[in-house]
């Protein structure tokens, strides 16, 4: 069967099970948009290419399946670089197709030419420039394979316009042949045995669960492992929901804005079991003083993560789910041979910390509206399996701290790259992937203004996402740092509470817009918003700009020097 390169590309995407893609056409990708008309793939027309990338990410986060985006050459390709980098940092499987100027004129500074493969090399797991239409099915197959196996990540296929127009003989490759790519998924049995032995000697163990748990679909395995050992679990920003927050062994989020118990449990533990986590600087604080007394078991599918930051005592390369399943067996057989230390004293200590240093805020009845209160009310008035999507900043930290994530893949955010403007498009992608779930983006006013135009996409495509803007009229996290570390010298952080008028802006984009200014208006508005199911909703919560995120470990500081909310620090004077 003879096909054009463009037809082969669309057919290849169909063969890979693509049901939906996010994109925006342009000159160089025109040939590929033509056969799309006859395809079963649903295409969602975005308003900015960055949005297409984040939607693909949101889709991947919520479903665990690769998100697909397609844009044209030059500025479109550069616009999607942010999303690629975001996906690279957070190991999100997305496949991006870019148009390119005709192969015959590459290198001549043609209209809308840019070196897409060169630019995206550092932010993709791999990328391909197609020079022969005959390669298209093979490259697409390889692209999906690389994106979704091993440590997942973004990939890009760059398709020159003339190659898309040339004819090829259709085929579909049976298998992928990449001699330099063979991810090791099965943990080494001896290492697993060593891990169980080390665990059996620990009096103060902590499981440090990272985003790899979700990528490996290892939530159930993690729960079984935690219960088999009675070990407390901290879930990093990327792992929220991988272990249920309502589980008695869950200590919540560690790190720069983690709760006191999660942070301190890691500092004081004698064994850290890192599962799919990467010792990110936002978790460790100053590395030299991080968990100083702990031995480390580190499980990751990416060998380069083992020993990158902290040298593990027992490194295990492998898929988190497979390794955890083996670990459970090893732990059980070790327990039969000898008695494990009693963890009661450790748990007593942890419970004491939890009691002494809970997360704290105070909402006065007639006082200014607190952002944490808005999140609490959202949490309490939405279904348990609501997907929460956030941008980056204070609202992100409060959301992660206060929401009760009891199901995997219900928390979508930009962790590693910290991309402001992530929430609105990512929530659209998540809703497309999980149309039966309620999807709330919890956004900041600064973030919202970066990508809000994608709500036009959501209205046009009838994707009823909900957006809560915690509007404090500031770039809040930057303001917080300036207040605490720059002697309250506020430099370029004020945004205004009513410029733009968010509710009117939302209405103009085809959404329903609400504005909430007082505490007693919060719940009724949330209930109204939750009733709307035929178009997007935006709620502008006008919150107290003075509220700060606590606890906080200053950047580069030791986790031992955690700063608690001065208004509620019971340890003062101790």
């Amino acid at each position, binding site marked *: 069967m003879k096909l054009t390169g463009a037809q082969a590309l669309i057919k290849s995407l169909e063969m890979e099970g693509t049901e939906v893609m996010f994109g925006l056409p342009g000159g160089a990708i025109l040939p590929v948009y033509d056969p799309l008309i006859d395809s079963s793939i649903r295409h969602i027309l975005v308003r900015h290419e960055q949005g297409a990338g984040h939607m693909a990410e949101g889709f991947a986060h919520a479903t665990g399946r690769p998100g697909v985006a397609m844009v044209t050459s030059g500025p479109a390709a550069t616009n999607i670089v942010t999303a690629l980098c975001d996906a690279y940092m957070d190991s999100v499987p997305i496949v991006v197709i870019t148009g390119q100027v005709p192969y015959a004129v590459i290198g001549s500074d043609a209209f809308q030419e840019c070196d897409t493969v060169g630019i995206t*090399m550092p932010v993709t797991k*791999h990328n391909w420039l197609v020079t022969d239409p005959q390669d298209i099915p093979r490259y697409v197959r390889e692209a999906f394979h690389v994106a979704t196996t091993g440590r997942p990540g973004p990939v890009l296929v760059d398709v020159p316009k003339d190659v898309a127009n040339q004819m090829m003989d259709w085929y579909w490759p049976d298998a992928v042949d990449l*001699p*330099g790519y063979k991810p090791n998924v099965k943990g080494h049995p001896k290492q697993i045995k060593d891990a169980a032995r080390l665990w059996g000697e620990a009096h103060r163990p902590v499981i440090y669960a990272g985003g790899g748990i979700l990528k490996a679909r290892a939530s159930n395995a993690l729960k079984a492992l935690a219960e088999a050992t009675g070990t407390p679990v901290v879930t990093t920003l990327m792992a929220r929901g991988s272990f249920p927050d309502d589980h008695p062994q869950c200590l919540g989020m560690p790190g720069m804005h983690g709760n006191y118990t999660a942070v301190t449990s890691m500092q004081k533990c004698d064994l850290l079991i890192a599962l799919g986590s990467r010792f990110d600087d936002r978790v460790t604080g100053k590395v030299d003083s991080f968990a100083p007394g702990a031995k480390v078991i580190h499980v990751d599918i990416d060998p*380069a993560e083992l*020993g990158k930051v902290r040298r593990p005592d027992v490194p295990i390369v492998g898929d988190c789910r497979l390794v955890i399943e083996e670990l459970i067996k090893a732990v059980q057989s070790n327990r039969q041979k000898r008695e494990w230390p009693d963890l009661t004293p450790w748990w007593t200590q942890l419970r004491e910390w939890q009691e002494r240093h809970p997360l704290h805020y105070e909402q006065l009845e007639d006082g200014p509206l607190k952002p944490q209160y808005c999140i609490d009310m959202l949490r309490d008035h939405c279904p348990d399996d609501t997907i929460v999507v956030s941008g980056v900043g204070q609202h992100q930290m409060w959301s992660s701290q206060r929401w009760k994530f009891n199901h995997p893949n219900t928390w979508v955010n930009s962790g590693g790259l910290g991309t402001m403007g992530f929430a609105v498009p990512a929530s659209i992608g998540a809703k497309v992937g999980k149309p039966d779930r309620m999807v709330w983006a919890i956004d900041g006013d600064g973030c919202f203004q970066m990508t809000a135009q994608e709500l036009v996409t959501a209205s046009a495509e009838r994707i009823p996402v909900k957006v809560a803007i915690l509007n404090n009229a500031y770039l809040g996290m930057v303001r917080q740092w300036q207040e605490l570390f720059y002697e309250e010298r506020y430099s370029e952080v004020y945004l205004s509470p009513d410029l733009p008028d968010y509710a009117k802006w939302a209405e103009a984009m085809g959404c329903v817009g609400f504005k909430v200014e007082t505490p007693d208006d919060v719940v009724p508005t949330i209930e109204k918003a939750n009733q709307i199911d035929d178009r997007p909703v935006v709620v502008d919560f006008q919150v107290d700009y003075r509220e700060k995120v606590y606890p906080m470990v200053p950047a580069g500081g030791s986790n031992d020097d955690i700063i608690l909310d001065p208004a509620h620090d019971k340890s003062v004077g101790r």
Partner: protein
Amino acid sequence: MPNGVAQHHILSVLVENKFGVLSRVAGLFSRRGYNIFSLAVSPTEDERLSRMTIVVDAESAPLEQITKQLNKVIPVIKITELSPDEAVERELMLATVKAGAETRSQVTELAAIFEAKIVDVGYEAMTLMVAGTPEKLDAISDLLAPFGIVESQRTGRIALSKLARQTTKLRAVKDRGA
């Protein structure tokens, strides 16, 4: 160039012979902050593969982290660390040295000692080609320096692992003799 190789590691990296591979490898080194000391690339006996001989500055990052990151580059097939004891290393140098009528014979004498070839001769200078171990190239450079090196270029080292010696066979011969 410092003498000796103690602070350097030699990586022999087998890669797919496709365009852009050098850029992927070089890009990885620069963005992770690893220092490339020298680099030589050429196709191998199998035309689908190329071999890169990369000499890395061991001070810039732990070798383990460099090889692990390098392994993640998809067209990288195999990485071998060659320690100087287990490898044959060679390098080629071209050097144009000031050699007027009064010093020409001294330079040619030096060239002869180092088995260097004279590849070009002018009125005031001559160009030598010398191949050998990096140490040998360092030595001739030092000795040529007083005459005045106008220009020089080294290829960077290429290396292959030494062949395994069949010790069992040798023992068998000895046994038969006994």
